[in-house]
């Protein structure tokens, strides 16, 4: 019965990292259903444009470029995590900042794109196509924004030398989240933009 040599196995002696990772995976499973439902809605309404603008207003070269930016941010995230595992705080910090900046670039592109579309007459209220498009890409953008916030928070913590404190907010979990958001974008880019042409 009393096999443990240590006084008592409890939270602080317990390695909580796999527990946090397990919960993160479960959460991402939930997120997959969230985006899945919105993607299904978009597929239902992809041609319901009510004589308003439809898929023809997409600027595929532009969105391809911003998609590339987002995919590169996954690469920098991997590099950040790699440096983190090697306990190279300086490199971690640089790659975290790079990831955040790439994310901000993507968001700027999305804001530009939304403004363009609104000028061309596509709004949430224009048609079911418009509602579904803005909701899906908007919620994805919100997820990127939350990711950027976490990356910047982690960056500023690292300036304080607090990178390796075992906290709920850490590089590994941010990485999982960030890659998930990127994968979702690959699906959105395919389904929303590429399938239309």
């Amino acid at each position, binding site marked *: 019965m009393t096999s443990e040599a240590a006084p*008592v196995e409890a*939270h602080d002696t317990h390695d909580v990292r796999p527990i946090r990772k397990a*919960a993160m995976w479960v959460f991402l499973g939930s*997120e997959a*259903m969230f985006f899945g439902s919105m993607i299904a*809605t978009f597929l239902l309404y992809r041609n319901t444009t009510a004589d308003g603008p439809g898929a023809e207003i997409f600027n595929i070269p532009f969105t391809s470029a911003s998609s590339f930016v987002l995919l590169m941010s996954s690469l920098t995230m991997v590099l950040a995590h790699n440096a983190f595992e090697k306990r190279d705080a300086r490199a971690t910090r640089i790659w975290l900042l790079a990831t955040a900046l790439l994310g901000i670039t993507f968001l700027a592109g999305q804001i530009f794109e939304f403004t363009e579309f609104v000028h061309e007459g596509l709004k949430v209220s224009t048609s079911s196509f418009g509602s579904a498009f803005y*909701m899906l890409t908007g919620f994805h953008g919100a997820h990127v924004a939350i990711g950027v916030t976490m990356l910047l928070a982690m960056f500023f913590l690292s300036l304080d030398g607090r990178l390796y404190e075992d906290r709920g*907010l850490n590089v590994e979990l941010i990485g999982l989240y960030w890659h998930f958001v990127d994968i979702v974008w690959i699906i959105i880019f395919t389904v929303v933009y590429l399938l239309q042409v």
Partner: protein
Amino acid sequence: MVVDTEKDLASGNPTGLWSWITTVDHKRIGLLYGASALIFFFVAGLEALLLRLQLTTPNGTILSADAYNQLFTMHGLTMLLVVVMPVAAAFMNYFIPLHIGARDVAFPRANAFSYWLFLFSVVMLLSSFLLGGAPDGGWFGYAPLSTQLEEFVRMDYYAIGAQLLGIASITASANFIATVFTMRAPGMTLMRMPVFTWMAVVVSFLLIFSLPIFGVGLFQMFFDRNFGGQFFGGTGDPLLWQHLFWLFGHPEVYVLVLPAMGIVSEIFPTFSRKPLFGYPFVVFSGIAIGFMGFGVWAHHMYTAGLGPVAEAGFGVATMMIAVPTGVKIFNWIGTMWGGKVKFTLPMMFAIGFVSLFVIGGLSGVLHSVVPSDYQQHDSYFVVAHFHYVLFGGGVFGYVAGAYYWYPKWTGRMLDEKLGQWHFWLMLLGFNLTFAPMHILGLNGMARRTYRYPEGLGWEFWNQVATVGSFIIGISFLFFAWNLIKSRKDGRVAGNDPWDGRTLEWSISSPPPVHNFDEIPVVQHVDDFWYRKYATDDEGRAVRIPDVTGGTIAAETDTGGEDAHEEDMHMPSPSYYPVVSAFGIVFMGYGLVYLPGGWVAVGIGTLITMWGVFGWSLEPVTRDADHD
């Protein structure tokens, strides 16, 4: 022997309101869930009694159509999302760690966050009664009814309130899954876990995968109402809402009833003094129900015109899902068969659960037959069916759990005589209320209508139902009085009043903050039983003399506990979960009152960010700072 509440408090368990607000102890959070759910049960029960009063006589005049719509919507919404789910969460919070031999759930602060977000969301939903009217489009919120009348905020309260409750549930579910999969005691393999904990896992997965679908539907409703979205109106299709809603709504039915099935799966073996008959079958039936629960949603939509192929497919799937449910029922009967059955209060409620659930299940099979469902759709027959499943099934099961585990919570037994009154009145009142609704439904009485004309032959059974509903109300007054009175006057329970089988009975009642002085090493299903009993040649259980298992907690209770506690670093209290939850609900209020509410949304976002960042940066245990 028994750690008295006062003594427990004296031994370092902090007291006072602030300690409850900042608590991260899974047991306290479980009690908070339970107490809140009980209060909301009385609120939703009062709503139901008002509905019944209105329907007692033809051309009822007690409620206006408007008030009736609000009350039946809030009755459904409250009972399902604000009473039964939290009651299940109460049991899960309290007993998952105890069942698997852990000291707490995986994320104690996230656990507190789930509770406070739940509580604040409910307060928000209920406050709508005073702030321009409660949601009135049914708990199912069908579009386009729910997306019209944008000048009223009622369905905005629905869209936001249900969304926030969903976030709370997703957080709690992720927490439970992480707990069960990473924090089990040595030897506690998955197939040695108590069935209740198994069902909690299935329910958590159901919520994780179904709630986000509902969330998307609610956001779409919100867009339609506030930003001119065209998801369900305009060029959109109102059927989309039905699909999204029932893709959540049907798994939700199993979310409500599976924990109750888990509870009775604990109770039957204990009071039959036999192992659960076919443990793996019960577990895998539960998992099968979970999977199939995602494949039957359209049986709520037979009259929506999906076409014969879809209707036939969903009809067959619905009939199939009765199979694993039937398996469980036979397993429970098999557990009692040949056992030394003791008719204690928990056992009586558990038998009530099985009997009434079978009736509800049989009328459910009638609904799965499409042509028959065409006739019953939106009639009182459906109301009778789901009350037999959710009240006769769910509520009886949870009440059984309350009688079973009350000694563990308080160290005292519930009063037997009051409990008998409660049981018999509830059984009588329940059947008087809901059995006549079968007849009313088959005679053509439609749901959700606030009055009916004379001369349709519905008067008598409506009066019977109203009388029955008040008997249910009275029975729960006995229950509430029993819960209050027995905390002080109840017979002292001891660690193991029922001669139980699972680990929670091996520790004191109420359990110490850290649950287990030593983390148990598990060798069997029902491990605690096998520490107390050996089997003789004829297969009879023989009490092992001089058991250590049964009295571990009692022996170590007196001396070494405090010394142990020093080393354990239980997670320290935190107010950040409350702050985060408060910020989110603040945002919610802002979203209801758009566009002026954007200010509140901004303030709420800032509060939430303060809470979340403070939370993720504060140390988990107080001592970690000094280390």
